[in-house]
């Protein structure tokens, strides 16, 4: 099956700092989504971004499908940004959304 690799595995930020999370995938995909999982386990959609760039407030994402990677940018981080960020891809060949292992972000005040 498709491989999804996220980096870095852990990230510690000071409040106000900027950061970039990366997602690499091993095969062509129908779509790519970024999620934020809060400490209670709820997965929140951030972006549905099979290609191109999108922005939502302090967050933005870019997917370069031809090079099989996506980036999630967090600007002016806040303590509420803490949690685990997952990248998930929907392969062309089947209907199984595949998640990466996640990046755990800790934002310190």
């Amino acid at each position: 099956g498709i491989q999804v690799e996220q980096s870095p595995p852990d990230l510690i930020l000071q409040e106000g700092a900027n950061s970039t999370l990366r997602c690499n995938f091993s095969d062509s995909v129908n779509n790519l989504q970024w999620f934020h999982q809060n400490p209670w386990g709820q997965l929140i959609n951030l972006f549905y971004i099979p290609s191109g760039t999108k922005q939502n407030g302090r967050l933005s994402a870019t997917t370069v499908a031809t090079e099989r990677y996506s980036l999630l940018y967090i600007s002016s981080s806040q303590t509420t940004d803490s949690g685990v960020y997952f990248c998930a891809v929907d392969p062309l060949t089947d209907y199984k959304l595949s998640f990466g292992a996640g990046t755990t972000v800790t934002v310190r005040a």
Partner: protein
Amino acid sequence: DAGVTQSPTHLIKTRGQQVTLRCSPISGHKSVSWYQQVLGQGPQFIFQYYEKEERGRGNFPDRFSARQFPNYSSELNVNALLLGDSALYLCASTLGAEETQYFGPGTRLLVL
């Protein structure tokens, strides 16, 4: 509008027992997917149902089964529970079969 709902929120079972988890999708959504998330890992795909038909199945044993009802709600059944089945079980719904997935709060299953 209500989001995806799941019940129960928590469950404790013993090895060998059977469990049924329930999911109600967002109103108007016709596809439901199930995922298992073990502590410290990303969610793993179990099943996807679209218009009451199984559309995809992940690498899980036959002890795992699911179905989707005419109102598009879904149940996940796990038989002969093992300690390793302890996990957060997540349900997601989509309007069509290949669109943005919206997740419910999950059911935390502990097998003793």
